[in-house]
């Protein structure tokens, strides 16, 4: 039986673990303008990244964006997930596939759509102009708001699908019992649905938060040249800056920040759930 598992494990070890270890090693090297990289064991790249106000700003932008998008996605996703979970089976299957398809068409395709909607000649500005509400186009594209909307559109299906599978497992009878005993719809939600769905909510938020922290295409295409998030910053170091050690350090800072925050978040919310 091990013979069946081994090939897949070896491939993942060779193509993921090995390269990650190498990247970790490279992050401890020194950058040189002439030789690109000098073997060393120094934490300087990490210290530089933390000390540099520019990268502190990039990290802050990334964190604010990730927290905002996760919160909005939860608020928007919960009702949709509830509706999907309580659907009749014939429609449910179709709506599930419809929710899943956008996930798989790629972020670049969706960013193209937002460019058409939010651009200066896009649908929204053209409509406002047509209705004579504005004469000058509103600057909608290349703003943090555009990135936020684009990111939310990307992660919403994940949230809806994760939440709906948990809400589905809450028996309808529990809600009906609460309602029959006189609870209002809001009370049923607050006292019954929300506590029972909390593990799924935590899972959904963690997944969405990770995706938001690592936004690439949406940030690059909708944010404009002044807007920078961590994933594009990592890419720039490798493709343009050629400062591999620093890029590697940025990659691990991004990875560590994501990991620590998700573990903290899960622990905090999980404790509330246990009570």
């Amino acid at each position, binding site marked *: 039986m091990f013979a069946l598992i081994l090939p897949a494990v070896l491939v993942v070890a060779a*193509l993921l673990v090995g390269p990650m270890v190498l990247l970790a090693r490279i992050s401890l090297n020194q950058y040189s303008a002439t030789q690109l990289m000098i073997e060393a064991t120094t934490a300087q790249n990490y210290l530089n990244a933390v000390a540099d106000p520019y990268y502190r700003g990039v990290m802050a932008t990334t964190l604010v964006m990730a927290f905002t998008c996760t919160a909005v996605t939860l608020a928007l996703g919960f009702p949709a997930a509830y509706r999907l979970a309580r659907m009749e089976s014939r429609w449910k299957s179709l709506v599930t596939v419809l929710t899943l398809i956008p996930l798989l068409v*790629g972020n670049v395709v969706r960013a193209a759509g937002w460019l058409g909607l939010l651009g200066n000649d896009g649908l929204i500005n053209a409509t406002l102009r047509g209705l004579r509400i504005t004469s000058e186009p509103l600057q909608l594209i290349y703003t943090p708001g555009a990135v936020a909307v684009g990111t939310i559109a990307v992660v919403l299906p994940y949230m809806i699908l994760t939440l709906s599978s948990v809400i589905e497992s809450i028996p309808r009878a529990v809600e009906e019992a609460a309602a029959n005993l006189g609870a209002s719809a809001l009370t049923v939600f607050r006292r019954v649905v929300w506590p029972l769905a909390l593990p799924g909510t935590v899972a959904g938020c963690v997944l969405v938060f990770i995706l938001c922290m690592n936004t690439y295409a949406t940030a690059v295409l909708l944010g404009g040249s002044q807007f920078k998030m961590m994933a594009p910053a990592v890419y720039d170091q490798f493709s343009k800056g050629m400062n591999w050690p620093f890029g590697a350090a940025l990659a691990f800072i991004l990875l560590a920040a994501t990991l620590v925050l998700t573990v903290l978040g899960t622990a905090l919310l999980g404790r509330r759930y246990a009570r």
Partner: protein
Amino acid sequence: MSVASLSPAAAPALAGPGLSVRLGRIAFLALVVLAYAIIFAPIVMVVVTSFFDQEIVSFPPDALTLRWYVNAWAQRDFARGFVTSLQIALAATAIGVPLGTAAALALVRARIPGRGLINTFLLAPLAVPAIVAGSALYMFYLRAEDWLDMDIKATFGGLVAANVLITIPWTVRLVTASLAGLDRAAEEAAANLGARPLTVFRRITLPMLRPGIVAAALFSFVASFENLELNLLLVGPGRTTLPVAMLSYLEFRMDPTLAAVATAQIVMVSILMLVTDRFVKLSRIV
């Protein structure tokens, strides 16, 4: 005896919902509609603009046309990107699905210590941010090129290897999910009736696995085809995937040609997902 007389709280409900209840329902529905509007707005937008006649997207359109689809195929970057992505995704699927299926089968059926751990390990490529994994692979390829004195980055093999990191975890996930619902009685019956292990596998296990494998293959193909971040640093001049070609085009402009390429991708993905759903209910695996 009416229900209302049993439960006084239900009485207002019989008189029709109160104002606050109705407002609550409207707000709830509005949120549901808003969520799906945000999900579908960019996709509908892309499809619509691909039919606009004028070269610079503006509203309203002068006329509608199909010529951008012809133009898109005539653009060498897109045509080549499409073919490259297709080849890579097919090869990565052909390698990853057998490996992933074998692992999933053993993980579900065998009593191996640390099964959960191995399962997590095989799904790890989906958990590591693609841009980080892509940077790591990029460094790894450059280092390996030095050692082996051969090209790896921007070669077909190098890109396929990277994409196997996408197809293996998805296969493990889908095949595991489809196996979880099957019981072993048929296999045991065949063995009791004297079938050898290989015969049991060929005649019983494999046919039961088929829907899971088909779903895994289609899903892996799509996930690899549309991947941007993992491949971003691994492509090179002359060998670029479609999403990377679209990204570099979009950094300069958004026009109906790109919308046509995007629409073709949306149609392809939609068809493949609807087919996948026939084999394994997608609501069960995501």
